[in-house]
């Protein structure tokens, strides 16, 4: 069970004056059950990359295997793939349209051909998973706050019970509590329901806290593909390509520079506190 991209290339507007290579020789493998973060500057190809994962965009060349099957082979069921790989776009709340929350979340499973009862059951399960309070289930989605709308939109994808959940900047524009709530909920989901999570984010602090592995995109190519700790060791290179390390990583480097014997491969506040106490306490 995995997603595997082999020498994948994608060229926009091929053959025109606006031809642009958006993805360049991407080779990555994402095993089932992993929590992967994708980071990269605006325009680095992150969104183009994830739209390949459920076949919304077809590669110009190269192969994409889902569970060992080449999705570009003739007769491959894209519909089946899209049932398994759920994509949550940026600002997904702009896609809410039904009269109430429940009906909106039922839309996905309804299109999968499930009965009304099954849809409702799926919707309830999904709404519980995203932590939306029951009193909102029959309210118009447009009456909800930004963070609540976003949860409804994510529930709409979860109700289709995807095996792979891909989220494109799910916390952009949310307040800090809304940000933490959504990410904690996704982490909970990942632990509880055995799914693969692929998270695209501009927050280095967030990916450091949640992801098992980071894929760093730069100009359409994979620049790093490693544990967050290892990736953020290259903080100077990351800055050159529009990125950074979490604030605590910089603190550790500064401390080490001042002669305090701390490790610098630290990426979260909790780790930093432990490491500083160890170094200073002794």
């Amino acid at each position, binding site marked *: 069970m995995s997603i595997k991209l082999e020498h994948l290339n994608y060229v926009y507007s091929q053959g025109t004056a606006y031809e642009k290579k958006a993805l360049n020789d991407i080779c990555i493998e994402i095993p089932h059950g992993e929590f992967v973060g994708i980071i990269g500057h605006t325009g680095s190809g992150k969104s183009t990359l994830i739209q390949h994962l459920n076949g919304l965009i077809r590669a110009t060349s190269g192969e994409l295997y889902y569970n060992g099957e080449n999705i570009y082979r003739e007769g491959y069921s894209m519909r089946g793939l899209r049932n398994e790989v759920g994509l949550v776009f940026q600002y997904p709340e702009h896609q809410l349209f039904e009269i109430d929350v429940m009906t909106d979340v039922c839309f996905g499973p309804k299109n999968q051909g499930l009965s009304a009862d099954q849809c409702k059951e799926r919707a309830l399960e999904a709404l519980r998973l995203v932590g939306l309070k029951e009193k909102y289930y029959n309210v118009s989605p447009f009456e909800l706050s930004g963070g609540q709308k976003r949860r409804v939109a994510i529930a709409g994808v979860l109700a289709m019970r995807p095996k792979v959940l891909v989220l494109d900047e799910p916390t952009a524009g949310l*307040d800090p509590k809304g940000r933490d709530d959504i990410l904690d909920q996704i982490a909970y989901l990942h632990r509880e329901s055995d799914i693969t999570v692929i998270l695209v984010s501009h927050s280095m602090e967030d990916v450091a806290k949640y992801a098992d592995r980071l894929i760093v995109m730069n100009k359409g190519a994979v620049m790093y593909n490693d544990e967050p700790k290892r990736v953020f060791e290259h903080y100077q290179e990351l800055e050159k390509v529009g990125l950074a390390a979490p604030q605590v990583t910089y603190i550790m480097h500064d401390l080490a520079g001042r002669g305090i014997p701390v490790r610098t491969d630290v990426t979260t506040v909790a780790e930093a506190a432990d490491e500083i106490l160890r170094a200073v306490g002794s």
Partner: protein
Amino acid sequence: MDMVQTEKLVFEYEKRDEEGNVIGVSRAVDEVDIDVQEGQFIAILGHNGSGKSTLAKHINAILVPTQGTMWVNGRNTKDPEELWNVRQSAGMVFQNPDNQIIGTVVEEDVGFGPENLGVPTDEIWQRVEDSLRSVGMIEYRHHSPNKLSGGQKQRVAIAGVVAMEPKCIVLDEPTAMLDPVGRREVLKTVQKLREQKKVTVILITHYMEEVVDADKIYVMDHGHVVMEGTPREIFSRVDELKSYRLDVPQVTLLADELRKRGLKIPDGILKKEELVEALCQLN
């Protein structure tokens, strides 16, 4: 001198049913008093739906108060005669750069504002050049805006506002859609404008790190101003901030954690340099 001042400002939205009949009102801003002096850097924090953007839209009279008053540069925004003066005094930059850029060439986009103000052509070009220089985008003047990165587009949007020579710039989550470097570029640009052009800056954001240099922070909740003070005062009240769905900068959180676990670290640490210094003092 007062740049932006409000007195018991109230703004109510009318809720309507499908036929358009009013079925109730909801109060987005509730008796807010703020006072911003010329040249200050003011931050407004608050969770989604707390009323901060609604308040901000009053500053250049996109909205006018239901009750109470807003003065911008001494002018009452409710006075229709003053509308253009108000808009010229205060410019706004929004979250999504793609919604604010209309020109097909960078310099045309920046010239749009002054052109609408009736500025003579020669002066428009002068202002376009000055403002693109001040946001560090002069070398892109002949480029198409849609080929720029998010941070660059946002700087062009800021240049468009600067070219109108406002005394005050209101930025409503200008960095929400940007990558880390784009975010830094925009903040540096704003900082530079304050120093060089002495503009008053009002920044609305969800990133706590961006407001540590503010002269004053207002925290909003349910349409009210619930906290007011310097960054040091505000960010030392961690639990209270969390109750308003907000947070503190990562370095403040780390300092707080170390203090709880017994290290002697002073209160109100906002920058990494301060924490590093405090820890070096311990040794």
